[in-house]
C-alpha cells in the first residue's frame, strides 16, 4: 500500500461561487484506479464528494475526469502511473454541476443532431448482407462509448460550444460509411455547416485522449473531405 496525494476540484452550487481545491490522502496499490481512489474517499472520508460512474470497466463512459489536466476515464487510469500530487477536476469545456459532475446535455444534443441511426427503407425479414470488409469500413467508429473525453480535449469545442465536436461527427461518419445506410445526404447538411466538420482545425488531441482509440480526428477530417465533395456537387446542381 502506498499513500497518494490527490487534489480534487470541488464545487457545490449551493455554497460556492467558484470551484475550490481540496487535498486528500488515499492509500492504494498497483491495481488502484483513480475511480477506486475517489470511491474510497467518498466511502471513508467525505460522502459529499459527487462523481459519476457505473461499469468500472471502461465501457459505460460515465467516469471521465481531468487527471493532471488531461481527460481520462477514472476507471482506466491508475495511481501507479503518477508521481506527486495528482490533480483531479471535472471534464473541461462542460459546465460543472457539482464537484466532478458536468452537464452533458450539449454533448447529447450534438449526438442527436446528426441523426445517428440507420436510414433506409428495407423492411423484409432477412438481415442485410454485409461483408467483413464492409463492416471494417465503419467498425472502428462504432466503438464510441460517449464518454466526452474528446470534447474536453478539443479546444475548438471549448472556444465554440456550438461545434458538433469529434464524437458526434465520428458517429455521423460511422453511419455514412455503413453499407446499409442511405441517410448520408440528410446528415451532410449538419456536417456542411461552420459548426459541423468545418469547426475543426485538426488539433488532434481528441484522438490522443480517446480511451477506445477510435481516432475521432480522422473521422472528422474525412468528413471534411466528404463535405468538400458535397460542396462541389452542389455547385453543379444549380
Amino acid at each position, binding site marked *: 500500500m502506498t499513500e497518494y496525494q490527490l487534489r480534487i476540484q470541488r464545487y*457545490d*452550487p*449551493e*455554497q460556492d461561487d467558484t470551484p475550490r481545491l481540496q487535498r486528500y490522502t488515499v492509500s492504494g*496499490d*498497483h*491495481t488502484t484506479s483513480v475511480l477506486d481512489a475517489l470511491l474510497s474517499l*467518498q*466511502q*471513508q472520508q467525505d*460522502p*459529499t464528494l*459527487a*462523481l*459519476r*460512474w*457505473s*461499469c*468500472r*470497466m*471502461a*465501457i*459505460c*463512459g*460515465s467516469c471521465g475526469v481531468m487527471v493532471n489536466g488531461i481527460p481520462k476515464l477514472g476507471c*482506466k487510469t491508475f495511481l501507479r502511473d503518477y508521481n506527486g500530487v495528482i490533480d483531479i477536476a471535472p471534464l473541461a469545456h462542460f459546465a460543472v*454541476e*457539482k*464537484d466532478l*459532475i458536468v*452537464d452533458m446535455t450539449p454533448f*447529447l444534443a450534438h*449526438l*442527436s443532431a446528426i*441523426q*445517428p*441511426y*440507420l436510414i433506409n427503407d*428495407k*423492411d423484409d*425479414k*432477412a*438481415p*442485410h*448482407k*454485409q*461483408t*467483413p470488409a*464492409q*463492416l471494417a469500413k*465503419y*467498425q472502428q467508429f*462504432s*466503438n*464510441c*462509448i*460517449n464518454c466526452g473525453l474528446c470534447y474536453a480535449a478539443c479546444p475548438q469545442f471549448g472556444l465554440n460550444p456550438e461545434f458538433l465536436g469529434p464524437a458526434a461527427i465520428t*458517429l455521423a461518419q460511422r*453511419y455514412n460509411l*455503413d453499407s446499409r445506410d442511405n441517410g448520408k445526404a440528410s446528415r451532410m447538411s449538419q456536417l456542411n455547416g461552420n459548426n459541423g466538420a468545418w469547426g475543426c482545425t485538426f488539433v488532434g488531441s481528441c484522438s490522443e485522449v480517446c480511451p477506445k482509440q477510435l481516432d475521432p480526428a480522422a473521422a472528422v477530417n474525412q468528413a471534411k473531405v466528404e463535405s468538400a465533395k458535397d460542396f462541389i456537387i452542389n455547385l453543379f446542381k444549380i
Partner: protein
Amino acid sequence: MQTLHTDIVVVGGGGAGLRAAIAAAEADAGLHISLLSKVYPMRSHTVAAEGGAAAVTLAADSAAAHFSDTVTGSDWLAEQDVVEFFVKHAYQELVQLEHWGCPWSRKQDGSIQVRRFGGMKTERTWFAADKTGFHILHTLFQTSLKYPAIQRLDEYLVLDLLREDNRVCGVVALVLNSGDLVLIKAKSVILATGGAGRVFHYNTNGGIVTGDGMALAFRHGVALRDMEFVQYHPTGLPGSGILITEACRGEGAVLVNKHGYRYLQDYGLGPETPLGHPQNKQMELGPRDKLSQAFWHEQQAGRTDEYNGHAVVYLDLRHLSRAHLQQRLPFICELAQAYVNVDPASALIPIRPAVHYTMGGIMTDINCQTTLQGLYAVGECASVGLHGANRLGSNSLSELLVFGRVAGEQAALHARTCQGSNNDTWSAAQYQRQGQQLSRCFGSNKDDSVARLRQAMTLAMEQGCGIYRDTDGLTQCQQQLQALQARYQNLKVTDTSKVFNNELVQYLELGFSLDVAQAICAAALARTESRGAHQRRDSGMTARDDKSFLQHSLAYYQAGAEPILSWQDVSITSLPPAERRYGSALETALNTAEQAADAGAKHD
C-alpha cells in the same frame, strides 16, 4: 408541486427499457412515452454484456433444440410456454436490430456469424465482436432518438410507484441534477431497471445494478419470483469482478487450477476435450452453475492459487494466436491488460466466480404484465419465466428484445384503453408524503454510514447465499439482514445538498437492495433442495426434488418483517423433467429429451 402527465412511463434505459419504449412508440405514434433512467441510457449495464445474443439461425438448428437447451439449463423451472414464445421470436428481434444498424460480426459472404456458447448445443449466438451488449445498447439508444414520442428524462431516480387500489398510475422520481421531486402520472408503467448483482460482494455488475425496480414492485405487493436463483459467472477478475466473457471459452480457452490441470473433467463435465477443439456442453462449455461449483470444490481442496488475496484459477488462451484474439476478443485483451496486467496471448488470466445475474425478479405473465394493473416488468428485473433455476448465457440479451417489445406493445394497448387517474388532491397528498419521507432521512450519522452498511450487506450475502448454501449459513444471513434493516431505519444522510447528492442516491439504493437481499435469502432458505444455481449442502437437500419443488417460489413483502413465501406451479408443455446432463452423459440423454421436445413443438 411538479407533476408531469404522460401515457407510458418506462423506468430504465437499458436494453429492455429502450426496446420497450421503441415498441410502444411504434405501436401508437400518438402516445406520449417518458423514458426515465437514473443514468444516461447508454451507461446502463447492458453496455457491459460481451458475449452475444441467442437465436436459432443455422439450418441445422431448430426452435425445438433451443427450447430444450433452455429448459434443460433452467433445471426445468422455466415456464415452457414462455420459452416456446421466446425461441420463436428471438431471431426476428435480432434481425430487427440488424435493420436498425447493429454491427453484428459477419461471415465472409456477408451473412451473420454465430458462435458457441455455454449450455447451447448448437452455435446460435449472434455477436458484435466481444462488445455485443455495448452495440445493442447504443443501437437501441440511437434508434430511440428517431421517435419524437419518446421523451427522455435522464438522471431521474424513481423512488416509488403511484398506486390507486390495484392499479398503478405513475411514479415519483428524484431529479438528480436539482434534487427536486417530481410526480409523473401515467396510464402504464414499465419497470426495466435491471438486476440486483450489487447485493453481493464479488460481482460482474455495474454500480447501478442495485435491484431498485424489484424493490419498488415488491413494496407494492407484487411477488418476487425465484429470487433464490442467483447466477455466479465462473470467470470474473479477482477483486473487481470484471467479467471475462464466456465467449473466450467458446473460442477455445480452457480452465486450469494451480497445478495447470483441467479440473472440470473431475466434475462430470469430461472427458477432456483436445486443446483448440471446444465441444458444446462439455468441459469449459458446460453451464455456468456447474463451472462455478467446480471452482468451489477446487478451493476447498486447496487447488486454487492466490492473487492479491483472492483465490483464483486460471483461464488459458495462450494456444490462440494473438491476431485471432485481437479480432475476436479485443475487449478481453484490453481488460486483462488494464486490470490484471496480463497479455492473454502469452500469460494466464487469473479468474474466480462472481455474481453475475439474478434469474428471479418481478413476477409477470407471458405478456410482461404484473399483478398490479398497468404495471409491466421486463429484462433482468423481471421474472417472465424464461430462465428458471439457471440462465443460459446469451439468452438474456435476446430476452430484453423479445419481451421488451412485448412489454412496450402491451403497455401501449393498456394506455390506449384505460382511463388515467385525475385525482389531483390525492396526487398532492402523495407528493407531500414523499417529500416528508425524503426530508426525514437527513441528519448526522454518528456511528454508521451508507458505505459501511452496504459493505456489511454484501459480505453477509456472499457468506450466506453464495455458490453453496446451508441452513445455518442462510439463517445467520437472515438474521444479519434483519439487523441491517434495523440499522438502516436509523441511518441518516449527512449530505443535505440538493444537486447530485450521491450519498442520498446510495442511501435510497441501499434501501432497495436490502429488501431484495431479504427476498433472496428467504426464498433460498425455503427451497430445501438443490436445483440449478441454488445448491444446498444440508443432508437430504443436495439433490433436485421434483416432488416438492417443481415450483416457483414467490416472495411477498411484509413491512418490517421477513417476506412471506408461497409457491406456484411451473408450466410444462412438452419437456417433462429429466436429469440435467453434461459432458459425455449428455449425448444419450439428450436424444430422448429432444424427441419429446420435437413432439411438443409440432403442436404449433
